[in-house]
């Protein structure tokens, strides 16, 4: 038990950025994360969902391409654990296929968002001055436009597909990591080791990558996880509005939208499974993100 832990009980001493840098080094954060039972549970749920969506169909064969009219909206029973939907597809199989799309888009969009956002924010924060001001005003302007509206507009212009969804969602989501990393870069660029590197003549891109970004890894990781959660919500909303991928592909949001028509008829298996799946997945990613944030000792007000 280090004096630092006792000190944390007796009074604050370290600044957050220093704490983060310390937690990043030596994998301290990993050990702290593993001790957080809730976070580990979240991770387990995520892995389970990944398996269900991608490995599940290998064991549970259903036809997701040909409709089977005459078999529609059957309640759960023998051979169909979750019943069938309004065109005869097996609901559980639909859930798996839907999960594939959701997770693909969510991970892809999160990756795009994080890469774009980190590069933008690190550059803005590191160089500061007019460049920073301009880059951040652009971020502010894009942030002022609600993603849904932007996506509505873009979705009517482009053909919906998994790739398009990834790009479109990623392009609206990069703003938050940009802001976060810019803040990190601002505080890190006056650290002695950065100044030393500059004096030694190290070129800016190298400094940005080796010092600024590597020391913000905690923030980046936390934000990436939360981005996945947000992306799932966004894709679900988009698909719910009818702007997602075209059939026979589907995702949970679209399933909810389709099933909505049948709530009045009491066909609960058409809406509750996808709804619960969304909540569970987003919850899991949020919990993992929170756990990572605690493990890195980050300020909850950022990230």
């Amino acid at each position: 038990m280090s004096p630092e832990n006792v000190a944390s009980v007796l009074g604050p001493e370290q600044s957050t950025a220093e704490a983060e840098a310390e937690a990043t080094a030596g994998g301290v954060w990993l050990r702290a994360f593993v001790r957080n039972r809730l976070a580990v549970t979240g991770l387990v749920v995520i892995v389970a969902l990944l398996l269900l969506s991608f490995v599940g169909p290998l064991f549970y064969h259903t036809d997701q391409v040909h409709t089977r009219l005459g078999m529609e909206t059957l309640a759960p029973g023998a051979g169909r654990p979750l019943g069938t939907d309004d065109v005869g597809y097996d609901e559980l199989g639909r859930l798996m296929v839907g999960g594939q799309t959701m997770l693909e888009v969510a991970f892809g969009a999160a990756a795009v968002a994080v890469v774009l956002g980190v590069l933008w924010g690190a550059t803005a924060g590191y160089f500061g001055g007019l460049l920073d001001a301009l880059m951040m005003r652009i971020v502010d302007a894009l942030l002022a436009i609600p993603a849904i509206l932007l996506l509505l507009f873009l979705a009517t212009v482009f053909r919906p597909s998994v790739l398009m969804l990834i790009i479109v969602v990623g392009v609206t989501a990069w703003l938050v990591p940009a802001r976060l990393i810019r803040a990190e870069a601002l505080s890190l660029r006056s650290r002695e080791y950065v100044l030393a590197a500059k004096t030694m003549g190290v070129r800016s891109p190298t400094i940005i990558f080796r010092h600024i970004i590597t020391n913000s890894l905690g923030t980046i990781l936390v934000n990436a996880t939360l981005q996945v959660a947000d992306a799932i919500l966004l894709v679900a909303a988009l698909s719910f509005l009818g702007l997602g991928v075209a059939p026979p592909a589907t995702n949970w949001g679209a399933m909810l939208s389709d099933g909505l028509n049948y709530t009045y008829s009491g066909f609960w298996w058409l809406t509750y499974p996808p709804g619960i799946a969304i909540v569970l997945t987003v919850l899991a990613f949020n919990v993992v993100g929170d756990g990572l944030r605690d493990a890195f000792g980050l300020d909850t007000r950022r990230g």
Partner: protein
Amino acid sequence: MNAPATRRREEQPAAAPVLQVSGLDVDIRLPSAVVHAVQDVSLEVWAGETVGVVGESGCGKSTLGLALAGLLPPEAETRGSIRQDGRELVGLRERELRGIRGAEVGIVFQDPMTSLNPTKRIGAQVGEALRLQRGASKAAALRAAADMLDRVGLPRPREQLDRFPHELSGGMRQRVVIASALICEPRVLVADEPTTALDVTTQAQILELFDGLSAELGMATLLVTHDMGVVAGHANRVFVMYAGREAETGATETIFETPRHRYTGALLGSILRMETPRKSRLGTIPGRPPDLTAPGTGCPFAPRCTAASGECTSQLPAASEEDGHRWSCYHPLDAQETKRIPEAQR
């Protein structure tokens, strides 16, 4: 259990000590372990005198200070006795402790910037204790605050009342913090590393301020610090702590001229003094402070001590006392070794 060290015969005042600590134990319960931060500490402080509590980070000196101010977190468990003017503080309920804080015991922390609420004006913060403890009106508290700010040497005190903490320099802020801690004229002042965050010149000024106020208000002052230089100039007596325990205690001149505990000797050897020969290297103490969650048997300093022997690791040494000077060491330094300390061999 150690009884508090007796003072040198000539110096024994008639009055009882303001602060009397006996056999104090403080344990901190963390989720994964229990930290034995303070173990069997006994000391006394009289009115008007300053006791310097020294030791490295993690030795328990801050915990001791917090215990005296009644500010330990809920995870802390206290045993033993702390008497302030005869009143027992250990075991008091939060309500009763609240009445004592600020009024009887004041505390000053290390970082003046974070000790002050950034969104409240100086005047309000300095006068706060007066309003809380004595029910003073806003106007009366502000008047008293201006007076106190003057006493701590802040220029143009009336103008400062309306300003915010971030508008002042570090030294001025620490004066404000001191003023706010002393406004009720408490009997005891705990100063936890009060000058560590300040530059050297300001340090000297603040320490002189402490000297003056201590005498003026007749307070019992505890100066908690890791800096032997601070202690040398501004403490009447010294209390050296290691791993939560008392290592050595006595009058300042005695400790500096004739240290007995090996740890004290090592500490003195690691600082720069007038007598240190020019071309020598400063000594360091090898090893690391012990893990307070698992105090072993024997002297806690033994693993890092150059003179440690078998008995050092198996049993805690009993305290030896001589004329107000007390130490707990099986192999105390003798006169020869003490003379060599300025050469910083160890």
